[in-house]
């Protein structure tokens, strides 16, 4: 997509003008923002001065400076992952007042999902939530594995994909409608082990920000949500380590300065060891004797402070799942492997006091591979996605306006389900391998400003475009699905392109000091689609770009909310209602088989439809005191309609959950003990069941009824956890004075005891039907069975740091 030069030029000129320092002798405020615990400077923190409407962004050294008229102000500093802080200051004529601010990192002492008090009243944004890892680590964890994506599922409007599953659905959007960013790079499959664990190692994560409603204009690409995960920076002051030993995996993280105060590194690793532990006990001659499974993650990040308000960083992730199965008895073997490779490089430069320039380049690779063989036959299937992105953007203050503008370019290289097969010397003709090349671009500008004392507006406009280019072969099919012709496109030749505006608008009206109402409108285009044959999200699911057949998804969301503080700010409450419509949703046509796309275009087997989602979300949370937590409840309805499916009738989306409830609580008993629990309830997932049966060749054949017309049993579960913090001090006697002295232990540690599914509820994972006996012997019968995955599961994890 071509980016208008004038747009870039205007951004540069704006920044240059803003960078011009004002004459000395004026009054104002300046200071440095640091992390209270480590003393690290915090570049990119937001500083606002109410009621001036002015703001600034700290530079790479954490410094800020603002010119102000003399008077009284409330200075507020915000930084993601840290407690926000406000203080009253008075600026005298001719004085450049110094106000250094040390932000406390979020600790176990307060469990919270958004650190800054009253932020939910002040900000224009709605449908957002910030989770910090301290909170996540406190809550009960499935099999002891702390997982930020599972914690997201406890928020209203976010629904779990299933038992123990890290996948999720946001406000009626499919799993492909969530943009998961890891240090700015998209993650296509954020799940290990078919979705039971997320790829995010908690030790390596700073925090996660969820946008499920009013998406700022700097985000797009997906309809439903953005999950912005930020990796931790290493300490620039001292060498540290942390880790954990759990039942199924262990992890370790090391960090420290490269050049003290200037640069740092952090490296993390995690690996499961089910395969290692079970190997001695598995008979190699057994049916599953050749089976093994493991996953691992490696994270790393380097940060360099270049001085003069400039810093750079490099962030990387690599993770894989590997499953192998072989049976000597049946000569059958198979290997499955899938994983992500992610690399981000970023440069941040403060320009003047009021502008910050960010430049980010990312590389993402997601791949899935399958190899199966029996005797001389071998089949290989590979799917591969490569994204190359570059994103420059500016954030600057202009009067009372906080403006963010930027551009994003992505080159997509997607090869779905490419297969090859051989048998002995015979090579099967599986046609030309599929490869989709495409360019995606976006430019945006967003402005956040106040109108009077009560109204805050965040308005933005995003313009996005997409071009599918050659080389590409389009197979034209006849009515029977046979290839009747082929249209070939040369390298770089345009196959299809799409453009569209994505307006964003959010507004807050402050009723009084304790309550406000907000409204938002968001329009999004999505040019990348996930097509899944199975009702469950799997690594085999196929990502496809928009093409000449597949138009981009279009979603519009309208939301209205009421926000209120209760009991002197101890409680925060909100009610949000939303309505979202979606066009150009994709599904596979009825009866598409996994092999149909071989030697063909995968998108030839897709069909297109529309959908909507509407709901009410209630949220009540306690943010202060020894006991903290929240209650989130969502009442929602999500339906879809495809002309080619379900006889064209509307049907519930597979993840439509009428009632969704989460109750989360944590209580600090003492300095040593913290206990927590969560309870979740959700209406049963809709599924399609056979309405009729008939016999073909004496075998029962199923005639399915209306799509998703039956619901499985409701889902509910209670988890509890207790965290024991080992006394960080040790007592010794001074050999000289004989006095008793306390010293900090070299290794700090915690034990986390967790019980998943306390009352061992057998929640349905799937239903199936077993038919036994023979009709001609009068012994035929059908039995419906429910499979549940996890009864009560206790676990213990030892976490350490030094």
């Amino acid at each position, binding site marked *: 997509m071509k980016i208008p030069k004038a747009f870039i030029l205007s951004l540069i000129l704006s920044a240059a003008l803003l960078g011009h320092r004002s004459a000395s002798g004026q009054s104002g405020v300046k200071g440095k923002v640091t992390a209270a615990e480590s003393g690290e400077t915090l570049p990119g923190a937001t500083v606002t001065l109410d009621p001036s409407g002015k703001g600034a962004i700290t530079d790479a050294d954490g410094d800020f400076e603002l010119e102000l008229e003399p008077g009284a102000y409330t200075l507020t500093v915000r930084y993601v992952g840290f407690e926000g802080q406000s203080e009253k200051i008075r600026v005298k004529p001719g004085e450049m007042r110094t106000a250094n601010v040390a932000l406390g990192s979020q600790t176990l002492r307060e469990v919270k999902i958004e650190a800054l008090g009253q932020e939910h009243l002040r900000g224009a944004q709605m449908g957002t939530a910030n989770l910090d890892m301290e909170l996540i680590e406190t809550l009960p964890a499935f099999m002891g594995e702390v997982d930020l994506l599972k914690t997201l599922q406890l928020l209203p409007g976010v629904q779990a994909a299933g038992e123990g599953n890290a996948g999720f659905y946001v406000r009626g959007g499919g799993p492909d409608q969530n943009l998961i960013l890891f240090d700015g790079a998209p993650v296509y499959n954020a799940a290990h082990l078919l979705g039971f664990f997320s790829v995010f190692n908690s030790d390596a994560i700073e925090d996660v920000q969820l946008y499920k409603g009013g998406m700022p204009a700097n985000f797009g690409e997906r309809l439903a949500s953005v999950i912005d995960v930020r990796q931790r920076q290493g300490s620039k002051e001292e060498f540290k380590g942390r880790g954990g030993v759990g039942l199924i995996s262990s992890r370790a993280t090391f960090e420290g300065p490269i050049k003290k105060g200037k640069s740092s590194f952090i490296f993390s690793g995690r690996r499961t060891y089910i395969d290692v532990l079970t190997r001695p006990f598995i008979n190699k001659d057994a049916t599953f004797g050749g089976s093994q499974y493991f996953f691992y993650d490696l994270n790393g990040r380097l940060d360099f402070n270049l001085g003069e308000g400039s810093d750079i960083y490099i962030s990387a992730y690599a993770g894989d799942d590997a499953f192998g199965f072989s049976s000597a008895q049946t000569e059958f073997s198979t290997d499955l492997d899938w994983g992500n490779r992610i690399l981000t490089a970023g440069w941040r430069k403060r320009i003047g006091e009021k502008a910050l320039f960010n430049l980010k380049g990312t590389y993402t690779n997601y791949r899935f591979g399958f190899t199966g063989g029996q005797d001389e036959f071998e089949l290989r299937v590979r799917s591969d996605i490569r994204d190359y992105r570059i994103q420059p953007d500016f954030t600057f203050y202009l009067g009372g306006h906080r403006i963010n503008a930027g551009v994003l370019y992505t080159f997509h290289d997607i090869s779905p389900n490419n297969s090859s097969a051989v048998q002995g010397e*015979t090579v099967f003709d599986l046609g030309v391998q599929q490869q989709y090349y495409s360019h995606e671009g976006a430019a945006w500008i967003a402005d956040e400003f106040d109108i009077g004392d009560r109204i805050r507006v965040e308005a933005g406009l995003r313009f996005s475009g997409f071009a599918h280019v050659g080389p590409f072969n389009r197979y034209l099919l006849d009515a029977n699905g046979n290839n009747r012709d082929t249209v070939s496109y040369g390298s770089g030749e345009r196959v299809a392109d799409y453009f569209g505006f994505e307006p964003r608008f959010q507004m807050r009206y402050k009723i009084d000091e304790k309550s406000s109402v907000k409204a938002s409108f968001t329009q999004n285009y999505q040019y990348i689609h996930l097509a899944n044959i199975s009702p469950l999200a799997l690594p085999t699911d196929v990502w496809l770009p928009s093409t000449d057949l597949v138009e981009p998804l279009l979603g519009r969301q309208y939301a209205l909310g009421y926000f209120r503080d209760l009991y002197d700010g101890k409680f925060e409450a909100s009610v949000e209602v939303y309505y979202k419509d979606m066009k150009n949703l994709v599904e596979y046509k009825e009866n598409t088989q996994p092999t149909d796309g071989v030697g063909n275009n995968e998108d030839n087997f897709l069909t297109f439809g529309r959908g909507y989602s509407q709901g009410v979300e209630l949220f009540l949370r306690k943010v202060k005191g020894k006991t903290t937590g929240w209650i989130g409840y969502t009442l929602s309805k999500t339906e879809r309609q495809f002309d080619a499916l379900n006889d064209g009738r509307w049907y519930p989306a597979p993840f439509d959950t009428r009632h969704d409830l989460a109750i989360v609580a944590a209580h600090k008993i003492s300095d040593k003990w913290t206990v927590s629990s969560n309870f979740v309830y959700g209406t049963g997932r809709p599924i399609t069941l056979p309405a009729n049966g008939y016999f073909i060749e004496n*075998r029962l054949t199923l005639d399915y009824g209306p799509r998703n017309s039956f619901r499985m049993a409701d889902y509910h579960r209670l988890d509890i956890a207790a965290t024991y913090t080992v006394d960080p001090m040790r007592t010794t006697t001074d050999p000289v004075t004989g006095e008793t002295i306390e010293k900090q232990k070299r290794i700090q540690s915690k034990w986390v005891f967790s019980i998943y599914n306390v009352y061992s509820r057998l929640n349905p994972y799937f239903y199936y039907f077993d038919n036994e006996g023979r009709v001609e012997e009068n012994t035929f019968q059908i039995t419906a069975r429910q499979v549940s995955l996890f009864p009560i599961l206790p676990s213990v994890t030892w976490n350490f740091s030094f």
Partner: protein
Amino acid sequence: MKRKPAILLVLLLAIFSQACEKVIEIDVPAGEPKLVIEGRVENGQPPVVFVTTTRGFFEPTSLQDYADSFVDDAEVTVNGIELARICSDELPDDLLPIFEESTGIPADQAAELGICGYVGLNPNLIGEENTTYRLEVRARDQVLTSAAHIPNVLSPDSVWFRLWADSPNFGYVFANLTDPDTSGNAYRVFTRRIGPNMNDNPVDPTFYPSLGASFADDFFNDQTIEVVFLRGQPPNSSRPVDTGESARFFETGDRFVFKFCSTTYPVYDFFNTYEAQQGSTGSPFAAPNNLNTNINGGLGIWAAYSCTTDTITAVP
């Protein structure tokens, strides 16, 4: 690739061995009954058509219920020639084994159940290669139509038995097949153990389709390939030979007929979805798909085959 969902299931269940299951009661209202056709015409054989209706999936299915699902007042024509209605309770005893061969229902029970089928007794309807057979069924105030084409006969180049891996007794059947240069050729294989053999394995009363033995030349058009087949066996069979380690294998000493049939793509398409549905029952990864029928106005299949047979003795 078809095996991917199955492998994922193995992975899931192997890792989470704590998974448990229980029998549940499900109340799903039955849909409106639909007419189902199960018909075939084969080279050298008369067309045979059964017309049934669907039943509520969770309704009890006794042998009598099954017999009651057959429609005995249909008007069935092939190429405009009406087929004769033949009911099991009207058949002379010497023809009951032929009925058993067609339906799998034991002859003694068939004589008591009035199960009716429709057979083309007109010599003009005996199946011939390269001929199209148009079916029309009138029943329950509905008209169902279909057409099926018997392709030219194609014999495998060779067929042989081979033991698998470490087994001293059990094995598969292999065939070398040279596919014609026209695309869209489809095949289906049946086996029938005819014994006697030294193992005293029971003989099969009829041909049974081999599991996964419906295939098309999508990926090997105009090539010679080696194909492996398992032994066909009755559905839900409780015979010892059909369970345990001998299930679906041929055993050394077995004598059996290997029936190799050419058919058309729509027939393959139906049985491909049929086998996928049979194989995926219980898989959480399988999409709930109905079969790709070639019957206009109803369910089922009107299949045409051109078949050849080989008699094989399983000798390593």
